[in-house]
């Protein structure tokens, strides 16, 4: 019997030996560079003097792609084994299904971390290169490095939650299309859903997943001078709700994956 890390190594091999993974990584490198240049060109035209970290914060909208790519990898990692029929050979090794599933989860999380770090590094680098003007010494808000990193970190939490959601759908329904579709819906529609089912209107709405996914809302409230714990929600509350949801997703994925017959 080998060691558990060998299983994670296998999952990584199956992720990074595919062309599409490298296309995703290439896009994550190329898009910040491309949009950085576009912003720089326009910036010069308008004669303003944007700081590097303001530019980086502007570019961080591309981080949306990181969510999408993480969701795609998570949606595929269990479902594709069923589609390919390789699940039959994967599960007849001296490893319990729980360990196989855990190795897949770890590989997905490693991918989400790797692609996030890559994006952050590329965005920071291109911003520093294209916008060398030093920011004011007493800068605050969106023009600081702290702000840029904090915003990305909040978005990263968002990515982790949506990725685990996608992973669960993949393990439960064994269909990557459904996992991608539902995750994308959650990702795109969460703004609209939050507006309709707002915690300001319904007290119970504060327990809904999409109302807690955007952790940056508390920093926004603070800077806008609104009480941070309006409608009974706070950063701590939202983090707790997210932890409970993620735990529930993982338990459901685990229960279904370890119990159901493989008849495909």
């Amino acid at each position, binding site marked *: *019997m*080998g*060691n558990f890390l*060998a*299983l994670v*190594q*296998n999952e990584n*091999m*199956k992720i990074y*030996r*595919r*062309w599409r993974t490298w296309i995703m990584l290439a896009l994550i490198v190329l898009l910040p560079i491309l949009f950085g240049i576009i912003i720089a060109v326009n910036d010069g035209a308008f004669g303003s003097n944007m700081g590097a970290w303001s530019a980086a914060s502007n570019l961080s909208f591309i981080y949306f792609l990181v969510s999408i790519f993480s969701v795609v990898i998570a949606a595929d990692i269990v479902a594709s084994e069923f589609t*390919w*029929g*390789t699940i*039959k*050979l994967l*599960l*007849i*090794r*001296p*490893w*319990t299904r729980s360990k196989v599933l855990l190795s897949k989860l770890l590989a997905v999380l490693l991918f989400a971390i790797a692609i996030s770090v890559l994006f952050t590094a590329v965005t920071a680098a291109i911003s520093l290169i294209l916008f060398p003007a030093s920011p004011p010494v007493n800068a605050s808000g969106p023009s600081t490095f702290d702000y840029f990193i904090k915003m990305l970190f909040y978005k990263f939490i968002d990515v982790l939650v949506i990725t685990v959601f996608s992973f669960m759908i993949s393990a439960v329904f064994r269909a990557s299309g459904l996992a991608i579709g539902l995750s994308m819906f959650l990702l795109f529609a969460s703004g609209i859903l939050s507006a309709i089912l707002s915690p300001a209107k319904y007290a119970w709405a504060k327990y809904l997943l999409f109302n807690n996914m955007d952790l940056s809302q508390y920093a926004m409230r603070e800077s806008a001078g609104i009480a941070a714990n309006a409608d009974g929600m706070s950063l701590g509350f939202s983090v707790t709700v997210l932890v409970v949801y993620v735990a529930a997703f993982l338990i459901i994925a685990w229960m279904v994956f370890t*119990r159901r*017959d*493989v*008849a495909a």
Partner: protein
Amino acid sequence: MYMSQEPVVRLSNVTKKIGSKTIIDRLTLDIPAGQVYGFLGPNGSGKTTTIRMMVGLMSITEGDIVICGSSVKTDFEKAIAHIGAIVENPEMYKFLTGYQNMVHYARMSGVGKERIDEAVALVGLEKRIHDKVKTYSLGMRQRLGVAQAILQRPKLLILDEPTNGLDPQGIRELRDYLRVLAREEGTTVFVSSHLLSEMELMCDTVAIIQSGKLIDVRSLKAEDLEDQYAETGFEVSEPQRALELAPAGRLEEGRLIVTVNREQIADLNSRLVAAGIKVYGIQVLTRSLEDQFLEMTGGGQIG
């Protein structure tokens, strides 16, 4: 080490129910070590379901399956470590090379590179092993399937309908590997099929299943066949006198019909000749195993 008389696999009262339907009904079967053991039944009789329960892909509703002393139900990791298998078609990661596929499974079993090379050599895939699996023919994928199944030197090799979709040459080659494995590596082979003719060529014993029930187990070894009694027809010059010499027999279309084994055929023949009766021909009349199988399984209807 388990003792040689202990079966490699012991299925006791194995039952599988899906909803209210009983797919496998109290199946009890011992598979002795070192044999090529056939599992024969028409399509839909429960062969694949049984195999999926043996390798843990499906849960066992009732009963238990014990592999080399470890229960699949309660001690899965230990039990499955003794098994190498191909369940239905050998599905591989097509975007990886054959070798990368082997590395994948080798890592899971803690097997080294030398063993990968050995297994690949045994199935004769050395030349193409570094090509992507998507460029492989079905026969080559089958070879890779066998290579991954024997990678960790399993005590038990399970092959589910291994000849499906193979051309005659591929079937011949597969049979040859199985013989090599059983003889040289001491592997017990459990192979399912719905084709009796195929079973007769490679198996020592055949268990016949229909509608989820075990209906017969019979040996196909030559020495065991010698002990089998079969209806035999003697074409003789004086049937009435011949019947007096073999009172247990009967006459049919001028022939003497008796139920005897191999030795008794020779005995009766010499007695007939000694009595001055001419023997023109001797013919074993028992229906072939194929006919019996078809009769037992109702001509292959889905149960």
